[in-house]
């Protein structure tokens, strides 16, 4: 069964794609660089998802970055008992919504599921295309990778804070127990 429909974009769609790319922190530094924007847009494919379909599933391996063009998207995680809960909901109309950016750098399991709450359309960039883009345009590749690295640094700092929070709770618990 086909879970999604892949669509290629026509030249006149480029304006829509470029406008969306400019909303993302990864690409916004090229907003006045039409040539680079055109190159990035060229590696994007459009993919549609029906309402209720998973765009990404937690635990699956993935090598694609998704950028929401339209629709409502829900980020879902599982507890240790494998019970789902909603982390947050995004609306593509509200600006640059992207997910799966780590897959452009590393081949690892997805840390959360992404569900199309309504019919959605996404731009998709594969890791191979991203690497090829960087090889052909080292400056662009470096800037985008730096931007992803900045986001990862933010995630790492938050993880460090979380570890300290958990460690403090553990120490408090042990101190309180007789």
């Amino acid at each position, binding site marked *: 069964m086909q879970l999604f429909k892949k669509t290629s974009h026509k030249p006149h769609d480029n304006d829509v794609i470029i406008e969306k790319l400019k909303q993302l922190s990864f690409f916004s530094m090229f907003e006045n660089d039409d040539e680079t924007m055109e190159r990035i847009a060229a590696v994007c494919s459009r993919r549609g998802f029906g309402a209720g379909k998973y765009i990404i599933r937690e635990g699956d391996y993935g090598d694609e970055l998704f950028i929401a063009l339209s629709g409502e998207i829900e980020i879902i995680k599982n*507890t*240790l*008992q494998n*019970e789902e*809960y909603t*982390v947050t909901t995004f609306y593509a109309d509200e600006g640059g919504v992207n997910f799966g950016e780590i897959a452009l750098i590393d081949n690892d399991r997805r840390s959360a599921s992404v569900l199309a709450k309504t019919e959605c359309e996404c731009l998709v960039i594969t890791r191979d295309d991203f690497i090829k883009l960087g090889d052909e345009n080292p400056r662009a590749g470096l800037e985008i990778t730096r931007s992803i690295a900045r986001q990862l640094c933010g995630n790492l700092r938050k993880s460090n804070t*979380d570890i300290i*929070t958990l460690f403090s*709770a553990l120490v408090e618990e042990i101190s309180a127990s007789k």
Partner: protein
Amino acid sequence: MSISTQEIPARFIGKTFGDLFDFYLTRNRTILIGILENTGNFYTRKTEAIRDAQKTPDISKLVDNLKYVKQLVANMPVINPTSDYIITRYTRAIIIEGRMPGVLKKSIKEKTNAIV
């Protein structure tokens, strides 16, 4: 007069203590004085609370949730909470039920006997 606990009508779960208090006022000779929390099978209550506590990506909130679960006490009485206290599942109402005055009771009994 007697103090007893009663099952809370399902429609009051999620409503306030004030709403439930008003409900009991409309009933004859009953006054709501508090709530008994975490009634029934406490193991089930705690397991359910632990499952719910994990449903957050915020680690600080997760720790707070788990601390709250640890502090759960079976059949915990909450006497005269504020009117905005929210009634949760697995709670019972603590009520004072009035009795008819002895004289009136006797008089009714006499009347009943007379009819018989």
